[in-house]
């Protein structure tokens, strides 16, 4: 058993034997390595001032993505290349094209958010040499700036794309060397601890089941976009922590005739191309999950396993008819997602089980849609979300699955609304009846995101919107110019 955490930080290989499970990458960068370019703005993954790139192998290829260092656990960087603002440079000691564009367009004022913006824009520049304004906005969903109003930053992103130079970029030039380094990391269990705060990185999913059997009740961490806050905000003791984000088996995406079976640690970003190709109706919904950094870290399995009533994927996957595979040393079982959520904070998962895979059916000929309403369009937590899968035959509704988030202590289906549709004509009056029924399907709470009245009103109106869109009578708000 190896017990050394290894990763690259810019040009330096870091080997640690005393990393605690709850150590964050940001604290390590700033407090242990005195790299002060990466800033802490919120310590909850919402402002992006701490954005760094993390490069890791995915299907044998090195992939760099911006993530929030504040809620990334240090131990989960095993085998990764962490790139901070200090590593960014242009040729011959000049500024990098992204940095130069930011300077030329007056993209910084107070400058505190700027390194984070530069890193997000660097991640975009690297992967999308010709981004549209909307793609730039999507890449910046996880970065807050309070000074500039963003206009000069978007202009800088466009200018950086024009400047080009990707082939000669430092990370491109060292790609082979880093890839080789990462491939040489053995697939062996790694354990590390300090003062009893333990981190366990299983060797593979069998070892994960074993680790869970050895440590029932351990905290399973994939992307840490939620668990990170348990530490930074609630100061909870999460030890022992079992990290699973590095396991290749849990990253598999397989398609069969029914749909997709995906490993539990497939991130929102990794799955986005599948959404774009096979579920284009919900791409907009998908891109409203967190900010880019969160989508690069957060996992679909985690979004489900964590059981939040306001996660984005459960309503969608319940409506589609999805299910999860749970695994333990005792074996595996499959649970329909609509039955997985029992009550607030309680799911149908034993302490020795982990979510191994998620099954997502294809819609076939059915009509699907997913909507989210929140105070701010992007990178906000759901006030109310609705997802639809409606089957019709000859003008009659033969199947209706409508699931809501934010309306109850768990994400769940709207039985009254579904009943109002089944067997009815696929017509405005049916959906109006369903909209009215939906308002009494739920008794939502009032909180800072929305009042109960507003949520109830939305439940009906999102059903009305579904019909209007099916009827081609309306369009949604758009950021495209």
């Amino acid at each position, binding site marked *: 058993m190896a017990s050394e955490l290894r990763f690259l930080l810019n040009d330096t290989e870091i080997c640690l034997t005393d990393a605690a499970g709850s150590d964050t990458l940001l604290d390590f960068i700033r407090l242990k390595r005195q790299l002060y370019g990466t800033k802490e703005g919120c310590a909850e993954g919402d402002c992006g001032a701490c954005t760094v790139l993390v490069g890791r192998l995915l299907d044998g290829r090195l992939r760099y993505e911006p993530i929030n260092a504040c809620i990334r656990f240090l131990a989960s960087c095993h085998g990764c290349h962490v790139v901070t603002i200090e590593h960014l440079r242009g040729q011959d000691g000049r500024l990098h094209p992204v940095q130069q564009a930011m300077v030329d367009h007056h993209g910084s004022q107070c*400058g505190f958010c700027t390194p984070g913006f530069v890193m997000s824009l660097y991640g975009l520049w690297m992967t999308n040499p010709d981004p549209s304004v909307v793609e730039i906005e999507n890449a910046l969903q996880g970065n807050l700036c309070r000074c500039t109003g963003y206009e000069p930053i978007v202009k800088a992103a466009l200018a950086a794309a024009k400047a080009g130079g990707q082939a000669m970029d430092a990370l491109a030039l060292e790609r082979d060397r880093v890839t080789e380094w990462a491939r040489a990391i053995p697939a062996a269990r790694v354990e590390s601890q300090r003062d009893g705060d333990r981190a366990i990185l299983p060797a593979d999913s069998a070892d994960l089941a074993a680790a869970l059997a050895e440590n029932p009740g351990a905290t399973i961490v994939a992307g840490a976009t939620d668990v990170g806050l348990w530490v930074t905000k609630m*100061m909870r003791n999460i030890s022992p922590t079992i990290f699973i984000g590095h396991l290749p088996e849990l990253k598999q995406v397989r398609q069969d005739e029914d749909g997709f079976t995906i490993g539990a640690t497939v991130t929102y970003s990794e799955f986005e191309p599948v959404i774009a190709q096979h579920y284009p109706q919900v791409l907009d919904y998908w891109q409203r999950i967190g900010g880019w950094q969160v989508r690069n870290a957060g996992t679909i399995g985690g979004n489900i396993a964590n059981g939040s009533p306001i996660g984005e994927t459960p309503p969608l996957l319940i409506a589609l008819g999805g299910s999860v595979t749970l695994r333990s040393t005792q074996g595996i079982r499959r649970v329909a997602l609509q039955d997985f959520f029992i009550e607030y904070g309680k799911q149908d998962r034993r302490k020795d089980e982990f979510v191994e895979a998620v099954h997502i059916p294809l819609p076939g000929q059915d009509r699907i849609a997913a909507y989210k309403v929140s105070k701010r369009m992007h990178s906000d937590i759901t006030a109310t979300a609705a997802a639809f899968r409606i089957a019709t035959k000859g003008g009659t509704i033969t199947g209706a699955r409508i699931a809501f988030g934010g309306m109850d202590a768990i994400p769940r289906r709207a039985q009254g609304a579904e009943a109002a549709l089944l067997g009815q004509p696929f017509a405005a009056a049916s959906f109006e009846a369903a909209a009215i029924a939906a308002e009494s399907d739920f008794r939502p709470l009032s909180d800072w995101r929305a009042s109960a009245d507003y949520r109830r009103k939305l439940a009906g109106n999102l059903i009305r919107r579904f019909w209007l869109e099916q009827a081609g009578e309306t369009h949604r708000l758009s950021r495209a110019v």
Partner: protein
Amino acid sequence: MKQDSQIKGAPHSSIRHDSAEKHVTGRAEYTDDLLELVGTLHACLGLSQVAHGRITAMDLSAVRAAPGVVWVMTAEDIPGENDISPNGLHDEPILAPGLVQFHGQPVFAVVAETRDKARRAAALARIDYEELPHALDPIAARDAGMGYVTAPLTLRRGDAAQGLEKSPNRIGARMTVGGQDHFYLEGQIAMAIPAEDEDVVIHVSTQHPTEVQHMVAHALGTAANAVVVNVRRMGGGFGGKETQMNLFACVAAIAAKKLGRAVKLRPDRDDDMTATGKRHDFVIDYDLGFDDNGKILAVRGDFYARCGFSSDLSGPVTDRALFHADNAYFYPDVELHSHPMKTNTVSNTAFRGFGGPQGVIAAERFVEEIAYALGRDPLEIRKANLYENGQLTPYHQEVEDQILPRIFAELEESADYHARRRAVLDWNARGSTIRKGIALTPVKFGISFTATWFNQAGALVHIYNDGSIHLNHGGTEMGQGLNTKVAQVVAEALGVSIDRIKITKTTTEKVPNTSATAASSGTDLNGMAALDACQQLVQRLTAFAAQEKGVPPELVEIGETVQIGDERISFQDFVRTAYLARIQLSAAGFYKTPKIHWNRETGRGRPFYYYAYGAACSEVSVDTLTGEYVIERADVIHDVGRSLNPALDKGQVEGAFVQGAGWLTSEELWWDDKGRLRTHAPSTYKIPLASDRPKIFNVRLADWSINREATIKRSKAVGEPPFMLGISVFEALGHAVASFDDYRTCPRLDAPATPERVLTAIERLRR
């Protein structure tokens, strides 16, 4: 100086922010990036868990016993005064001495070996309270008889009661306007380093180093000369670091002196947002009289503000709300009252605009009321009521520099307002689910601190004998580019390249008795003070050159190449010569704003040196099923006089617009019934993102405008005025909502117009 155009970085040129390269490479140092001294300790505040109550028992034994804890500090441990009230009312303790007055008020501080240990220890406190009744909003506070935190103000001109009585049309209603968190990206932070005797050095993120100096001195029970306060730059301020840093600086300083070790206090974002003040929420009751042509005849307004538990800056903030309750419009008969209500919430404070925006939005509500009542385009009502030069404001200052008619004319054309309004009306007439709205609104903003004595500044310019120049002034850099602009002034005044000038941290050691960098005044005041210093240097150097070479002073020109009669000599060589001749190469400059005076008792005077103007036209689309919206386009023309740096000024205008739009749309402060602020982090408090800015955003400076007053290079202040351009978005949302009733009813949106409020307003107007 004839060399103007050749000088690198001369005024009116769009040079980049002096720290731009440091920003993009991560090398710009903020307070938390300074290297820590060996043995540096970290503090964390313990916050009250009730909104109003007496502490009956405080058990901090578990806190003291927690790993790494060095000291736990309560009110009794403060050696000097337990007070950080910035106005002498002594109503704001550093640590609550037994009575807590808002949920989240600091009660104790724990100092530990690491920040993490301090935070974990703070959570172990056990404090018992005898809870007392609390009032959270200003109307509840009024009804509960909470009283004022500071003396209210009345502005009166003419006879409002009579004017209202005589008006053919009258409308009375209420408007609620939410507050706003600053959400500076760099949170509050202070690091105190103890030194010999009574001395302490503080590195702190602040807009007001002098105030930190005085507060720390009071808290330590020592004199101001024992305290040095330094700030190189802030990661944003927006008014939130004008007084709110005092708490952190005082706790760090007391602990550092007590323990003999450096102490840093950087609260977590949640504690920062919970324990520091914000923009004041207002409830405005108004009574409005107007004629059938839409001319305003009389206005009566009561402005109730949520001030929080202490006065802080609420007096001048609520005063400024009244000063701007006319926005750009003449009110023949007017009577305005401020009600700075005491509430059991955090003490509200300065925020860009300083109460002005809350006044301006009321004036724009009056315009809407009239327009919808008369079935007119609100723009016509705006134009009909614009000040004409010579008219008096409600505080009896004569308007002399009105330029809005030209700004309106240019904006109507460049934004194609009339055709687009027609298109919006046509679109809405189709009854689509998506509705549109458009509005063009002005801003007129008074420039000067209304506390006249704050309108002074100092600067210190050294020329070293190698020809390099060191520039220091009393202003602070928070991203606005103040240091760059002042350096531009110095470059021109000395005729040298800006590359020669080293911009240095603001410190109370170099320029004493400074005012806050606030009220948009930074460049006006410090630019003039630096110019004064440079003029002294130029005068001295010119006299020296003339005497040395026996030429009349008119034939001497100081610059990169110094011209003395027919002789030319490089700046370095000339400075070296002057040094050897024992010419003083350092000068302290000073400036005080002329002409201004203000008598608060009579409500009369000239509180403002001049006004800055601007206008914005915004168009929005609204999803009428959810209340969500996008800003389709915004066009802005804004007046900064003769801009010192058009690129930096444009950046201020764009940023202010988006911040102003955020205040009125997605940024909502939400307290629960226990008085807990539940929107205390970016996960719950939503400032605009890149995808919230206008899809098309055309911002222009009124490049023809020249300040008629003799300000620095005839420029105008820019920090705050464009914040109010965001009101055009709010008015456009109202316009879209009003379409549900064919524009017959004033939509009366309350702010912030979250999607929920927009949908609620739509439901109200839907048949």
